């Protein structure tokens, strides 16, 4: 028996037991919200009804429920928001009478209580091979907040969907479990809050405020680097929340071990739960994302156009979305669907050009990253601290900029092309074993 049917039958029994006046007043707008492990949640319109049902009719309702559904253990009354009245024609009439255009009022973009943007949900999150692990971890967290993976640490480059995923966790928990206090905060906001509270001599209020949340979601925590006092505060907050099994979710653009100047005690705590990476989406995932977004925009875009977009713009989902918006806007402007030729023309300027980087620049970036002299890389020295950077320069030139092996050798102090091949192979093999090296390369890439 589904909830609706069950409640209907319960109401029939109750109607016999109470007077008509009371039945119409108190039971009219009630329904079963959900059943969970023997607890039936009944939706009531207001506090008056909640109090009165509980004080006066609790036994009768309970009895009727038990008769029909034996497993019922307890009964809870939940006040739910009244549905807005039927769409009346009134707004148009009101505007006509007032004769004035309305004030351009806008809703708050985010919910003031928890900072969550309701737009970010699991439903609008596109899962592909690149992010399925992160998605699965998030799903595990929302099923058992505080128990499954605590803390959950999600990292990945900008525009890969970290914020979407962690806000979706918050929105899901908020909507599923009434009464759980969810709070989303960026590390920057947290820092400002903390500094302000210290200045106003209200550090205690700050602690209290954050400790009362059941789920704390903190975005972009790489900005905590170098902020020792805030890190310490976070450390204490983390401990107190962790001990009381409250879920904590973090996001960052790097693995915690590579966030510079982050206290070791924090790093080890982040590692205690689950650390997942959202890598760059592959072409298929990019296509899937584009298709979903295109559907939401309600403008039809040919598949070949989407495929072209997915191929030409790589990596960043935010850029994909931006490009899609341009297309939607253009096709609305022209009032027709855009052809592939037009699209190619449109995105010509926006697609990130392959950067032409000189060998010298790469060498310079790598040298500065490892803190060695640029000249050393060109010289014929086999000192250990120079060999690795030199190999990395070769690898990056080959992989990212497709420079030929002989040219790389020639530019880097007249080396044989086989030396270059060997170096690239060596780095490739090492990458498989050593994740830290991959991180280093990524960081160097961002410097270029």
């Amino acid at each position, binding site marked *: 028996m589904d909830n609706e049917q069950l409640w209907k039958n319960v109401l029939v029994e109750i109607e016999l037991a109470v007077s008509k006046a009371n039945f119409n007043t108190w039971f009219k707008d009630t329904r079963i919200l959900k059943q969970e492990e023997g607890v039936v949640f009944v939706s009531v319109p207001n506090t*008056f009804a909640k109090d009165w049902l509980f004080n006066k009719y609790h036994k009768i309702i309970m009895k009727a429920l038990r008769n029909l559904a034996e497993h019922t253990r307890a009964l809870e009354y939940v006040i739910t928001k009244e549905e807005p009245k039927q769409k*009346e024609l009134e707004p148009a009439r009101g505007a006509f*009478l007032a004769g*004035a255009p309305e004030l351009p*009022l806008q809703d708050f973009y985010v919910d*003031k209580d928890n900072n969550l943007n309701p737009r970010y949900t699991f439903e609008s999150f596109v899962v592909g091979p690149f992010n399925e692990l992160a998605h699965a971890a998030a799903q595990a967290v929302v099923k058992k907040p505080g128990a499954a993976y605590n803390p959950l640490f999600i990292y990945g480059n900008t525009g890969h969907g970290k914020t979407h995923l962690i806000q979706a966790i918050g929105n899901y928990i908020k909507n599923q479990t009434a009464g759980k206090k969810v709070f989303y905060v960026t590390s920057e906001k947290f820092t400002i809050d903390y500094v302000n509270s210290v200045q106003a001599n209200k550090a205690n209020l700050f602690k209290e405020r954050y400790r009362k949340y059941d789920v704390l979601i903190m975005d972009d925590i790489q900005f905590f680097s170098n902020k020792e006092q805030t890190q310490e505060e976070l450390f204490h907050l983390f401990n107190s929340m962790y001990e009381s099994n409250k879920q904590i979710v973090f996001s960052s653009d790097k693995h915690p071990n590579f966030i510079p100047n982050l206290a070791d005690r924090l790093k080890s705590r982040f590692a205690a739960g689950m650390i997942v990476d959202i890598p760059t989406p592959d072409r298929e995932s990019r296509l899937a994302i584009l298709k979903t977004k295109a559907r939401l925009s309600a403008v039809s875009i040919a598949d070949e156009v989407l495929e072209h977009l997915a191929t030409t713009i790589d990596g960043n989902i935010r850029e994909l979305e931006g490009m899609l918006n341009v297309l939607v806007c253009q096709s609305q402007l022209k009032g027709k669907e855009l052809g592939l030729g037009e699209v190619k023309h449109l995105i010509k300027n926006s697609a990130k050009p392959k950067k032409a980087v000189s060998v010298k620049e790469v060498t310079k970036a790598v040298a500065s990253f490892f803190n060695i002299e640029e000249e050393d890389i060109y010289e014929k020295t086999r000192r250990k601290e120079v060999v690795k950077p030199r190999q990395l320069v070769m690898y990056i030139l080959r992989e990212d900029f497709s420079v030929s092996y002989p040219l790389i050798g020639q530019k880097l102090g007249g080396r044989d092309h086989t030396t270059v091949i060997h170096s690239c192979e060596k780095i490739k093999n090492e990458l498989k074993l050593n994740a830290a090296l991959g991180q280093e390369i990524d960081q160097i890439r961002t410097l270029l």
Partner: protein
Amino acid sequence: MKVECVQNKLSEALYQAEKITGKNLNLPVLSCVYIEAKKGHLLLRATNLDLGFQSTVPAKVDAEGIVAVPAGALSTFIANLPREKSVKLESSSTLSVITHKSRSTIKCLPHEDFPTIPELPKTEVREMPAKDFVSGLKAVWYSSSISSIKPELSSVCVYPEEHEMVFAATDSFRLAEKKIKTKGLKEFERVLIPFKNVAEIIRVLERAEGVVEIRFSKHQIAFAFDGTYLTSRVVDGTFPDYRQIIPKEFKTEAVLLKEDLIQSLKISTIFSDAFNQVSMSIAPSAKRFSLTAKNASLGENTTTLDAALSGADAEANFNFRYIADCLQAIGADSVSLSFAGPSRPVVIRGVSDKSFTYLVMPMNR
């Protein structure tokens, strides 16, 4: 039940209670006031299932008891009794009201069906001077939307900001915001009070002297002072982010006496059309501020007002009612009207009074 109490105290409490009774046809007992005699006082209760009211009247209780009596009849009756010091109430199945010179009986309804008033826990308690809260509500509540389509607009939004309490209301054609400096603002919650309950809240709180205790829960707000307790439903929703639409730069400004404006708007009432439209013409170049109202079937009127003007010339049409509404909330003698350009809201403020801001959209005909 057998009690004796001071007549005007009872009359006062009944008057308050009667306004809050419900006209619920399903449950006739809601049109009653619930009277309970207990240990030295009478407890009065009334509710329409949206608001709940409770008040105590000191009384000499000879026998305890409970009755539910039709509130309208009892209240009018007690109010119209000749002024006497005290009145006696006795009940069995009816309520007998005995004074020095009269004796009457009123039929009662079964009190068992009378609902309880939700009592909010004292955990989330704030205090503030009642008159501050009332004046904040009074300054803005007329701007709320009457339509029930958007519950967040048919309510008054109250929230703290630094050392001030902010009250705001809008029906999307005009907007009023009042800031009140007040004491004892700890972490006051942001709350939306339903517009249709505001009138009753104002009436009840106006009787309070000194501070009123305000309690919150997720779905209710409650006010308590000297034995009186009033609780209202709150709207579950988010008030729009209205601050961003208040223009910051203006092209034209006019400062004039409030009394002059009220007078000329009264004249406009006579001449305006079915849309309550008045045209405002501000010409700093010609040092002229005038109001024109036209009605095809009656005639037209143009009134020129003395005003200090600055900026570019501007013209705009308004619903005069929207402008007249806000003037009672302005304490200053002079008001300023600031125009940000065509089809942008005009901002009305009291001169040298930053606490009140009012926005009206011009009409586009």
